[in-house]
Each structure stands twice: as structure tokens, then as C-alpha cells.
């Protein structure tokens, strides 16, 4: 039986990570930026589980579980901050939250 090599998992996760990174740079909507961040964190999960499957260990999967839990916590805080921004000024674009410069 031919198995999937570990490089394939890394290719998928790198693609996801780069997509997330691009989303953070290119997109302007605050919620979309947050979603891109989550995508980048999930790319790490794919890589960890792939590496685990390759080596027959479980520690990476434990790490992935922690990442899932803490990414959710971070998203909750991020959404809270976005709501605070929106209630204050009714903006949802990164171009409009640039009060501080220099």
C-alpha cells in the first residue's frame, strides 16, 4: 500500500498558512482579518497531525488540541474587541482604525 508522504501534509499546511498570511495583509475587513489568523493557526494543526501520523506519536495531536482550544479563546477576545471598536465608531475596516501614527 502506498502511503501519503509527510511532505504532502506540509504542502497543504504551508498553502493554508500562506493563505492566512495573505488574508491578514490584503483583506481590510476586521472580521476577515481575524478569520485569516485562525486559518494560519489551523495550518499548524494540519502540520502537527500529519507529523504525528508520520512518526506514530501522539504528542503533536495533544499540541493540536491545545491550539484549537486557545485559538477559540483568542477569536473570542478578538470578536469582543471588534464589537467594542464598532460600537465606538461604526467602522469595520482596517483603513479606518489608524488614529495613532508616527
Amino acid at each position, binding site marked *: 500500500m502506498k502511503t501519503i508522504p*509527510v511532505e504532502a501534509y506540509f504542502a497543504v*499546511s504551508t498553502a493554508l*498558512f500562506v493563505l*492566512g*498570511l495573505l488574508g*491578514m495583509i490584503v483583506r481590510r475587513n*476586521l472580521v476577515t*482579518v*481575524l478569520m485569516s*489568523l485562525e486559518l*494560519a*493557526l489551523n*495550518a*499548524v494543526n494540519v*502540520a*502537527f497531525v500529519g*507529523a504525528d501520523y*508520520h*512518526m*506514530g*506519536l*501522539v*504528542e*503533536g495531536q*495533544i*499540541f493540536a488540541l*491545545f*491550539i484549537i482550544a*486557545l485559538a477559540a*479563546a*483568542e477569536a473570542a*477576545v*478578538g470578536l*469582543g*474587541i*471588534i464589537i*467594542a*471598536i464598532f460600537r*465606538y*465608531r461604526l467602522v469595520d475596516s482596517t483603513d479606518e*482604525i*489608524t*488614529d*495613532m501614527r*508616527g
Partner: protein
Amino acid sequence: MQVNQPIEAVEFPRLDVFIPELIVLITAFVIFTLDLILSSPMKRRILPIITATGYSLSLATVILLNKLKGDTFYKSFTADHLGTVVKTFEILIALTVIVFAQKYYSSRNSFYGEFYYILSFTLAGAMILSSSYNLIVIYVALELVSIGFYILTALLRNSFISKEGAFKYLILGGLSVALASYGAVFMYIYAGSLDLREILSYKGEDQHYLILGLVLFLIGFAIKIGAVPFHFWLPDAYQGAPTPVTALMASVGKLAFFIPIVRIMPLLREEFSDVWIITVGIIAAITMIYGNMVALVQKDIKRLLAYSSIAHSGYILAGIAVTEVIGLKAVVYFLVVYTIMAAGSFFVIALLERMGNWKNLLQDLSGMRFNLPFLALSFMIYMFALLGVPPTVGFVGKTLVFMALSFDKLWWLAIVMIISTGISTGYYVRIVVLMYMKDKEKEFSLKGTNPLEIISLTFLTLLTVGLAVMPELILNLINSASESLFLR
């Protein structure tokens, strides 16, 4: 851990090395519960006292148990002398933050009970981050500190820039965590272990994964400490945050985020030291130059100190580039004394910001010695310490880093350090000139200072001078901590 390994009886973990963290965590949960059941006026009186009591107990246990060493929780938590030194200063600064936070928040009409338990969770995260080699624990503690900081930055009523700073911090901080954990993947696939000691002592045939992992891990932490190509969030977050929280981020945060890099440095093998010196040295050089150059043109004091904080990350990174025990000693000394200088200078601003017509601009400082002689004096001492004038800790720290650099023959980095210190004279001395040689433009008066605030500020100022005049007070501990890290 193999998948089909039979599980034997689970060994009971050693708890004695974990007591200080445990006390801070219990404090956090107690405050969390009290915040839900108490009425608002009660909270204002009781929560700071309970928090301070918990931290003091924790500080006492750190100092009493300073001889304890060893691993616990299946090697995921390591107590050693470095941890003791770092934790002592982290708790000390957190205690002073409580003192200054109380009046600051009530003057801004934004007292939140949340502040106290999130501060406690952040402190617990910083303490755990300071004493672990396990990548999972480092990740969880890193997120604990970071999420705490995002919330604390945003907790200021009627301030848009605090939300803006928090959002920028959240996005860049999340990116840094993603990069660091992506680096952890490559280190994991290289060695099949998540313990940094095992990863760096493992001799595999394909070292590309290890180098890639280390570089990504380093970039992740470079974002957190504000090293230059990745520093964009730092001035905004520092300016937007409530000033006591800025003091916390500049001291406890910086200290905690540096420790994993400090712990990697002695573990590096000979063949990597050239790559390490080049990478870290170049980041350090541009960080020093850029931070000081940009600080020259700032008009806002908090922003100026934020750029000065970036420049200090550069000085500390320059010490980390020296992979010898002398470099480690210099770095640990500079790190712990930088917490005092940074926290103290931001506390002075926190006091000044309580005055009604204070705009945080540099001109507001002019003639400060007439209005507020005590604050002007202590601010001058902090400025001289940050600049590195002899009877202060900044001088001793910079000298130690310089000695380490010359020991390793890294002359180019030493010269960059001297030049950037010269540049930094421009803005530190300008502040002193404004305070002491200009006439006053506006009338300022500070009302209702808590005596505890004056005592804490005096204490920090005395430490700024005292730890330089008598460095052996902490240098002995730092020496034994650094040497024991290199023995492995």
C-alpha cells in the same frame, strides 16, 4: 510517547517547585469568584488587597524556595535559578502595577473587577513561561500572557486608541504565536520530541528541519519582543493601553517573552553558533539603530518610551548573540534591571496622566521641576538609567553586554551599540533639559496621591541606583543561574 505503550500508574507530580505559580493561580480564581458576588464599592476596596496579598505570598515562596531545582509534571515544568531570579522581578513589578492601577482607573472612570483577575492570569502565564522547556507549555503560557495583554489593553472606557492598539496587538500577536508554533512543528518532526533540551541535543541526519524550526520560532518571539522588522504593533499597543498596563507589558511581558530565547541560547551546539550570531546580531543591530532613530522624532511621551523599549530589545538581543556564559549573564542582568527602568518610567507617566490638562506631549514636561519636583527627579533618574549614565543600572547592563561582545570579538555589533546609544542621547537628554532648564508653560498640580504610590516609586528609583552601586545583590544569583544553564 508511543501510541500503544501500556500506561503504568501515574506518578504524583512534585508540587513543591510549583507553589508560587499555584498561589498566583488560586488568587486569580478567588478574585474571579469574588468579582461575581461582591457589590461594586466592596470590590474597589477588597480586590486590590486580596490580589496584593496573593502576590506577596507568592513572592515570599519564590524567595524562600530559591534553592529548589528540578522537573515536575513529566518534565514539562522546570524550576531553576534563572526562574527564581526572573519570577522575583515579575511578581515585584506586578505588585507595583496594582498600586498604580487603582487611582489611574478611577480617574479614568473605568474601574473593572476583571482587571485584577486577568492581571493575575497574565502573571501566572509569565511565571510558567519563565520556567519551561516544553513546547506545549511554552505555547499555552505564551497565549495566556498574550490574551491577558489584549484584554488589559482594551479595558479603558471612552478611549478609541486603546481598542485600536488592542486590535493591532491581537492580530500581530496571533501571527507571532502561529509562526512560533509552526516552528515547533518542524522541531518536533526533527527530533520526535517536544522538549527543547531533547530537540537541541538530538543529532539527526537532516538538520534542515531543525534550522527552519528554530528560525520560525525565533521570528515568532521576535514579534512578541518588538524586534525591528516585526515591531509595528508595539508603539500602537503601548500608546493605546492604560499606562499601568503599558508598564506591565514593557517589563513583565518583555521579560517573559525573552526567556524562551534565553533558554535556547545555551543549548545551541557549536555548529549552529555562526548562524545564530549572524541572525540574532543583524536583528539586534537594526533594532537598536531603528528604535533610537525613530524615537528622536516622537512628540508623544508614551510613544517615545515605546520606541526606547524597542531599542532596548536590541541591546538585549545583542547580548543573546554571544553564545557564551558571559553573554547569558549580561542578558539576564540587563533583562531584570530593564523591567525596573521601564516600569518606573511608565509609572511616572501614569501619575502625570491623572492631571486634567495633561496631554502626554513632550512640551508638557517643560519646567516640571517647579511643579512636581519629586516626579521630575525620579523621571530624570529613569531617563539617565535608560541612557546608561554611570551610577544607574542601565550603565552596568550596557557595560556587561559590551564586555560580552568584546569577549566574543563581535566588534561590529559593539560599535553599532555605541553609535545607537549616542543617538539615544538626543531624546533622553532633551527630556531632562525640558524638565530642568525650561520655564513652565502650564500650571500642573497633582492631587490625591496615594502614599503607597510614592513609596513604590521611591523603592523602584532606589533599586535603579542601588542595583548598580551594589550589583552583587543579584549578580551572584545571576552567575549561578547562568552557569547552571551552561552545564547541561
